[in-house]
């Protein structure tokens, strides 16, 4: 059992949790992930390690409430326990001195991008960060990102905050005028696809962190496989970071949709159970 020590809501949909997991904290580094299972009925959910504290033996995760599992996770509180917290998994980000680099983050992707930007900055790179979200309510950690970036551009799809644009617009402008050594992009697959298509035009190496559907997360099932130019790879053990220019994005996008229908069933059922709980509480109130 792994105890939730702290929980914060970064906004309506995105939550941060600090978990007591010394076995993971000991070895964790930026770019790696954990597998979380809430209870004996739960699925194995991959989540990026957003931060860790080796001496305290804690690991921080940040997640967006998307479907049943992340909503359920978000309903837990400090003091509650998780059944599984396994990791660290995947390869750490390769941090070295590249020169001027751009970090692009979309939505909850800000969480995994932050430690990478921080490490790149510490390694002496000039870091330009572009952070995008659908609307203002989905943004978080703007100040944190600013402290590790030489330049920070914030945009929203609907213009409710920062510049009204998708992340590829400012990216294209910078690539047209500056000499950029490397780009990191983490966010929804569709965003990573368009970032990669753009940087390919400019011939700038691009690292993306793929979020395929996973089961074990240890290389045993092949469910996370992705097609690269040189054959199929398993995201959990060969990644999660890959060269964005070599990925068959359409295959990746279609494989992410495999369980859409089941996810809807699970999510609907979960919300139904939650609402029943709430109506139980109100019924209880009436009795008082």
């Amino acid at each position, binding site marked *: 059992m792994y105890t939730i020590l702290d929980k914060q809501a970064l906004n309506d949909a995105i939550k941060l949790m600090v978990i007591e997991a010394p076995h993971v904290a000991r070895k964790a580094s930026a770019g790696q992930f954990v597998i979380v*299972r809430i209870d004996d009925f739960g699925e194995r959910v991959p989540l990026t390690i957003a931060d860790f504290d080796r001496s305290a033996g804690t690991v921080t995760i940040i997640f967006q409430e998307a479907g049943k599992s992340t909503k359920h996770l978000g309903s837990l509180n400090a003091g509650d326990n998780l*059944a599984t917290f396994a990791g660290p998994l995947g390869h750490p980000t390769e941090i070295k001195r590249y020169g001027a680099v751009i970090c692009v983050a979309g939505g909850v992707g800000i969480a995994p991008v932050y430690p990478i930007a921080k490490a790149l900055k510490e390694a002496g790179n000039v870091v330009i960060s572009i952070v995008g979200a659908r609307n203002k309510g989905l943004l978080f950690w703007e100040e944190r990102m600013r402290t590790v970036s030489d330049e920070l551009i914030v945009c929203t799809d609907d213009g409710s905050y920062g510049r009204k644009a998708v992340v590829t617009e400012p990216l294209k402008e910078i690539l047209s005028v500056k000499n950029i050594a490397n780009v990191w992009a983490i966010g929804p697959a569709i965003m990573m696809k368009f970032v990669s298509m753009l940087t390919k035009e400019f011939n700038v190496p691009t690292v993306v962190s793929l979020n395929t559907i996973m089961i074990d997360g240890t*290389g045993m099932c*092949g469910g996370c496989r992705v097609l690269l130019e040189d054959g199929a790879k398993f995201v959990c053990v060969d990644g999660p970071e890959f060269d964005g220019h070599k990925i068959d994005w359409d295959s990746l996008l279609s494989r992410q949709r*495999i369980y859409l229908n*089941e996810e809807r069933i*699970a999510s609907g059922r979960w919300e139904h159970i939650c609402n029943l709980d709430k109506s139980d509480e109100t019924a209880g109130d009436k009795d008082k």
Partner: protein
Amino acid sequence: MTKQERMKIPRQEMPLQDTLIRRGNFEEVSLGLPEDAAVKEAERCLQCKKPKCVEGCPVGVLIPQFIKALREGDINEAVRVMKIKNNLPAVCGRVCPQENQCEGNCILGKTGEPLAIGRLERYIGDYELSRRTCPMVKPHDTGKKVAVVGSGPAGIACAVDLGREGHKVTIFESLHSAGGVLIYGIPEFRLPKPVVHSEIDYAVQCLGIEIKTDHIIGRTVTLDELLGEYDAVFIGTGAGLPNFMKIPGINYSGVMSANEFLTRINLMKAYRFPEYDTPVRIGGRVAVIGAGNVAMDSARCAVRLQKSMGMESGEVHVIYRRSRDEVPARLEEFHHAEEEGIIFDFLTSPVEIFGDINGNVTGIKCIRMKLGDADASGRKKPVPLANSEFTIDVDTVIMALGTSPNPVVFTNNGNLRRTNEGTVVADNETGRTSRERLWAGGDVVTGSATVISAMGAGKRAAADIHRFLMEGM
């Protein structure tokens, strides 16, 4: 009873769950021999002076002795004799390929039907599970510490034997549940999970063995670190890395490895979705490629999912490039699969998978084969027949083509010798590897094999580790 009288007793049949009903549920198919049938079966044994059956058993279970005790009504003694060599009789009695091992050698098989040794082993195992007659005792502590990596049959057998010698044993398992393939691979209807949990928990409790789940060796902790902290380390990480065929179309949605399919169902209980959160997708027309135990398990799970989802007209094909005579699965499972309505396409090999514009599987193109001369493995080699391609319409493809060792455990372990296939090089008798104080056994050394051979390797390694710990050599 005279020998002639014994030989007249018919082999006792295993009661089975009704074929039509069992196609729609995940409950156990074989129900176990009742007491009178077990004793009657035991009466058939000739108590050979030189028992051939024992020679066929990879761990040398004292077969005539346990059978004698059983028919004399001393079942506690039968349990004791069994547990000298085999700690998991309820598991082995259910999944061992007896027809190639003990029963394949039984002298009764020369003229009639061999003794049903597997069924008797299961009878003993189940009796013991419900009564707990034979507590294993931990002798005094030797002060030595051993790390066992992987909690499959190899790791468990090794840990139990070391625990019995009084060493402090810690098992590291990457998944959230111990048991290896017994938990994530072999389905409930062949091996109920409570049987596995119970066998493992019991051994662990009696011997004070610690199991650390959620520990991926090579990531959470490295082998080097384990060697720094423990007096000896045993690797029993199995062969869990799935192979995909190198044909076009394997990345379409609906193509999965048997490991993915079976892990969703067995470890994650996807057949009970949405009560359990993990789903599994199955279409009305399924192709399973391969014909080993893994393929049979996948095909039989697929039938059950189809029926429980109301797809009464569903079809499950097993596509196999050799013929019926070469099917590598346990005979019993092959028969059960046939009874359950699985369609076998023999002498057939897939060449391409087709999909629609949304990336979903729509069909599988195959080519007919014929059997040619024997190849290196001694089996007749399948040869493609020119211009014999044809397509089967399917929406799900499950690849059950064998597995190789998962390399994660070896991260940063350059000097541990491994073969080109990724298996660890280890001495067959002792399990010693090229690294000092590091042993290995089971599927990680042999490639995909059997539960009992993995247990045998775990036990031989335990004996050698014990010798090393006590005598320093």
